[in-house]
């Protein structure tokens, strides 16, 4: 029985090795390595583009249900072929480029954003031994690639030769830069406790179970829960999702840096936003939710990649749920949140994780780390009293 569980878990790996075995004796070694990398890349692209298509229709259906209406339900069974219809529509639209736009920059911007999002998907462990590219500094690679998104957004805004685009791009970059700091600093406690930047090792460190049934995930520690919430909110901002979608809010800035893009290039921006969402959710699952490990020890017969995608789906549902619930935040409120609240809380998580770790994970460590976070949170809430103080209400009647 154990052998078949292992075989199901590693089925994709065995499939890839069987496909490569056709090449092994006949071609030089580096061709086999290139072929192996190409198979990895092809699989990641195939899986995530399908997931993108699925999520784009599921999001509309879930938002529809939250708003007490049906989502798209005409095309295909329960509307699940809607992405095909959307894709055909996007492909046959005319590709309009403004006359005085900078052609090269205007063309390259959506490609660069999509490339950055896809590159970031390459270091996340999707299952046991199923990381596409094992890099020693995997988390640093993820953030390095994510930070090139800002340049691409700027290229989109400037290359359109449009004041709205430029303004939208500046606001988008300001938002992304401000929230990159909490994003990275909330990852630091996990890296510090595990002692490595390798996502495989981080997942490996979460494989134990307390008392035989509680999983050793970092989200179940005081600093881990806070860091997870902060990381999740920063991930919301980095992917320009509501409530932080000031860069693409239609009532504010037309479509921000994407104003002058039509047809397939707009679809590429859309795809890059969703792929960024997947990448951030995947990293959150890896760092805080135990990666591909099962939550209870007797559920380990379910394959590892099923657990990973189940957790990823839960996080994506929370993304969509938040979109359907919260209104858009103003730009200055967003900046205040980033610099005055999230940054100090992120540093507190770091200190709290250090206290937890160096107390040898005894009860005293847990209580002290929880106390540090609670005290700093209360102090910040008292200091950052951002409610407007209203004057007493006066009434004026027509004379």
């Amino acid at each position, binding site marked *: 029985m154990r052998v078949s569980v292992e075989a199901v878990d590693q089925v994709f790996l065995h499939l890839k090795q069987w496909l490569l075995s056709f090449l092994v004796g006949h071609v030089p070694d580096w061709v086999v390595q290139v072929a192996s990398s190409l198979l990895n890349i092809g699989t990641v692209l195939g899986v995530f583009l399908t997931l993108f298509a699925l999520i784009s229709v599921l999001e509309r259906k879930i938002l529809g249900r939250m708003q007490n209406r049906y989502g798209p339900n005409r095309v295909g069974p329960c509307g699940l072929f809607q992405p095909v219809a959307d894709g055909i529509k996007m492909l046959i639209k005319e590709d309009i480029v403004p006359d005085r736009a900078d052609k*090269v920059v205007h063309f390259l911007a959506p490609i660069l954003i999509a490339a950055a999002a896809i590159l970031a998907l390459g270091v996340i462990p999707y299952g046991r031994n199923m990381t596409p590219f094992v*890099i*020693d*500094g995997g988390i*640093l690679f993820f953030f*390095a690639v994510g*930070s090139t998104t800002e*340049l691409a957004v700027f290229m989109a805004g400037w290359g359109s030769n449009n004041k709205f685009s430029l303004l939208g791009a500046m606001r988008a970059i300001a938002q992304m830069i401000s929230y990159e700091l909490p994003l990275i600093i909330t990852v630091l406690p996990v890296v510090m406790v595990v002692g*490595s930047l390798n996502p495989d090792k981080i997942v490996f460190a979460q494989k134990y179970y307390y008392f035989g049934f509680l999983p050793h995930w970092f989200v179940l520690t005081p600093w881990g829960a806070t860091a997870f919430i902060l990381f999740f909110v920063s991930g919301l901002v980095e992917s320009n999702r509501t409530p932080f979608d000031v860069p693409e809010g239609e009532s504010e800035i037309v479509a921000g840096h994407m104003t002058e893009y039509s047809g397939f290039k707009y679809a590429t921006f859309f795809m890059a936003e969703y792929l960024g969402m997947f990448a951030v959710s995947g990293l959150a699952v890896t760092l805080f939710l135990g990666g591909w490990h099962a939550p209870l020890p007797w559920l380990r017969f379910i394959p590892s990649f099923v657990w990973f995608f189940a957790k990823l789906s839960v996080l994506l549902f929370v993304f969509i749920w938040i979109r359907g619930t919260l209104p858009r935040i103003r730009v200055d409120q967003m900046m205040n949140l980033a610099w005055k609240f999230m940054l100090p809380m992120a540093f507190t998580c770091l200190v709290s994780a250090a206290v937890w770790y160096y107390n040898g994970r005894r009860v005293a460590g847990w209580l002290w780390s929880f106390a540090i976070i609670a005290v700093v949170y209360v102090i910040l809430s008292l200091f950052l009293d951002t409610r407007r103080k209203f004057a007493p209400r006066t009434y004026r009647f027509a004379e």
Partner: protein
Amino acid sequence: MNTAAFALIAIFTITFALAAATNPRLMHAALSFAVMYIGIAAFFFLLGAEFVGLVQVFVYVGAVAVLIVFTILLTRRDVGERHEFKWGGVAVAIAVFVGLVWAILKTTSIAVAPPVAKALTVKQVGEALMVSYVWPLLCVGVLLTAALIGALILVMEDKPS
């Protein structure tokens, strides 16, 4: 394979460096500058220092290039760029290049092949930073804070009081 990769990366980097140095259009030069840094990071990867390569992409392409592009936006009068190029600078640069290449090719002791080396892990870099190089690390922290505050003060406008 190694030599082919090296030649490719060298040509890529030098092409974009030339584009950044000589393109009369400001924005294109700034963007070529950012792409050149990706080429330099590829050099670092080839030489086995992956951590430095990733830090290079992170700091330069993600931050310094965006800074330069923002500054270009904030300091332009209109879109008309003047193509003024001082040819004296070209002569000096070529002279410096010829001199350096002559010095390099004259030193025969460095025409060696790379020795086999173990990869440098992030753990080793971290240990070195925290054990042997902790004083420079703290000084660089103070320097970055001072630079941050200094840049803010330079750019802050006087509030009309």
